[in-house]
């Protein structure tokens, strides 16, 4: 078994003896994967990343980061970190910020020059390198923050809400940067309460609610139970027995949809195309007008809401079976 990038068992954090931010988090992030840490505000995502970067002291921990025990300062030379709402000294220029933090990460002078040119180019800030941060827009600060996180050519990058406060164009660019980091072989831990970016770039995700990981796996795994076919037909379904038996066999349901309830939707809980073909034949045979047939899976957004709701209802339990999903892959604002 190769060493994981992050391997955590039972991490706990109680702030000031009162606020239980993490209640026994265990997870493993493999090298080279883009891992999404998702959850609503206050779930403990930032706390977890801060523990890994020694910004916050854990109450209880056993685990490793890049093979070294969490808290080991030397390992941080191979880590890049963009905190939530980063603030850089206003009197420094973008270039000076990169140089300062790279030096703090023990990058030599010559390497700093070279890396600064590379990362500035990567984030598209080359022409702004000698302008003071004080004059940057929020999005530009975020880009410099990203460049800063990459200055030491890190093996693992922690990004805490990198698209927070960034406009749609900036978001798309940040998403492209994430893909590029993955292609360069870096491990990325992406924190977000917005699912859209995680959905498109993350291999695996963990959903955290109230200091616990409630779901963990690939997007396919997490959405498998909600996969289905949706068949939409115009008007009410015609009379006939053929398709009714098939619907019962498939365990599908029929609903009237549309503004005037003038369309019918058949939801078949299966992800095999072959399984719905007889039903289509039967419907066509009874002269129904089929408008569309599409495979659907729950979006992360839905999963997320489900998880939050189930946490709200059952406390620590993991549950929520109902997939009231409409369309797969909601694109969000990207």
């Amino acid at each position, binding site marked *: 078994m190769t060493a994981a990038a992050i391997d955590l068992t039972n991490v706990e954090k109680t702030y000031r003896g009162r606020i239980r931010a993490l209640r026994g988090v265990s997870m493993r992030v493999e090298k080279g994967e883009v891992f999404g840490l998702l959850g609503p505000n206050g779930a403990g995502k930032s706390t977890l990343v801060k523990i890994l970067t020694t910004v916050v002291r854990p109450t209880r921990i056993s685990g490793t980061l890049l093979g070294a025990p969490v808290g080991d300062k*030397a390992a941080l030379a191979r880590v890049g970190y963009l*905190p939530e709402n980063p603030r850089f000294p206003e*009197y420094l220029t973008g270039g000076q910020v990169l140089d*300062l933090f790279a030096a703090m990460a023990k990058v030599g002078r010559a390497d700093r020059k070279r890396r600064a040119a590379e990362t500035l180019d990567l984030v598209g800030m080359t022409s702004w390198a000698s302008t003071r941060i004080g004059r940057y827009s929020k999005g530009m600060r975020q880009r410099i923050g990203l460049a800063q996180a990459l200055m030491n050519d890190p093996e693992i990058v922690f990004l805490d809400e990198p698209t927070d406060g960034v406009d749609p164009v900036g978001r798309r660019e940040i998403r492209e940067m994430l893909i590029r980091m993955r292609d360069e072989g870096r491990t990325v831990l992406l924190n977000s309460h917005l699912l859209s970016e995680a959905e498109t770039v993350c291999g695996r995700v963990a959903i955290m609610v109230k200091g616990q990981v409630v779901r963990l796996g690939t997007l396919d795994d997490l959405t498998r139970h909600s996969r289905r076919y949706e068949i939409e037909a115009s008007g009410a379904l015609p009379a006939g027995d053929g398709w009714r038996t098939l619907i019962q066999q498939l365990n599908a349901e029929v609903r009237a949809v549309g503004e005037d309830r003038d369309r019918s939707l058949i939801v078949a809980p299966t992800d095999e195309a072959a399984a719905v073909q007889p039903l289509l034949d039967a419907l066509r045979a009874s002269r129904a007008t089929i408008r569309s047939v599409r495979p659907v899976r729950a979006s992360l957004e839905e999963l997320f809401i489900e998880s939050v709701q189930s946490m709200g209802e059952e406390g620590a339990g993991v549950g929520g079976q109902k997939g009231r999903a409409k369309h797969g892959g909601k694109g969000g604002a990207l």
Partner: protein
Amino acid sequence: MTQTWALFVESYRHLNAKKLFWIALVISGLIVAAFAMVGIDEEGLSILVWRLPIPVSTAILSADVFYKLMFLNLGVTFWLAWGATILALVSTAGVMPEFLAGGAVDVTLAKPISRLRLFLTKYAAAMLFVGLQVGVFSTASFLVIGLRGGSWEPSVFLSVPIVVVFFSYLYSVCTLLGVVTRSTVAALLLTMLVWLGLFAVNSTEAILLMVRTQAEQSVQWLEGDIASREQALAAAEDEEPKEGILNTLKSGMNSNKKEAELATRKTQLEDARKELRTISIWQNSFVGVKTALPKTSETIGLLERWMVDMADLPAFNDGGDDGSTRVRYDGGDRELPIPQDNEAVERAVIEKSRARSVGWIVGTSLIFEAFVVGLAAWIFCRRDF
């Protein structure tokens, strides 16, 4: 090394971006330029070509001592240890609160550097403001004392470590407050308050020391006076009594009066001793309190101790011209006052102050600073950001 250097460069850039840093530097330049404009010769003082109606000339002070005293009293005591220090505190009070602000400190903490080292380097780098200011000021003063006073005094540069150490006492307090409150304004105002408190304790102790010295001299004088009176009375008794009733009566009255005076002196001595005891207890307890606190004024005072010989101080070389000691009469008794030589008191106070060891003045102050910085570092190292 890379990291330490980077933190110092960052501090320098921070200063460079502050207007106050440059304002302070310009004021320093103006003050030294003003020194250079003042001239002293046999006839007195002048500014450029204009004579000043002040009776200070090279007859009282040699030119180099004059410039040195000007450097010390105006340049160091008033400007560096007062005006420039306030500007420095205003400029640097924000260093810790800004550094610790949410979103700002995270990136640095996530770097491969221990929190303690990070904190101490940051602390040391904040001395850069004062170090640079004093460095520039003393270099310029060195030139003025050399060119105008005719004496090249490398000891002027002692002001760099001394003023930096002095500032560091205050800055340690400012840092602790900055770490605890994370507010620049709170840190600044409270530090000023602490400084004022230190100043008050120091001034009180200085006054008590003077009163104590006065009391000591009174006791000493009374002891001498009583001894000589007793001698005189004993001699009078030994003397053959003169013939004649009138004479006997006269000498009897005389000796009665003398004995009465002696008795008064003895009560005066008793009172003076009592007073000395009380004042000594007070003064000693203030010295005790000062031992635990940073000694700001006395640290700055070290510079005068090292740069100017006691014999060169004006208080010591003008006594000779008229020979009379300025005497102030003291004590409640109008008939038999106790003379007080203020000049001797002043001299004794300076001697006593100069006799205080550097170890006590700087050493115990540094222990205080280490304690305060240690506490701030401990809080910083344990905090969740």
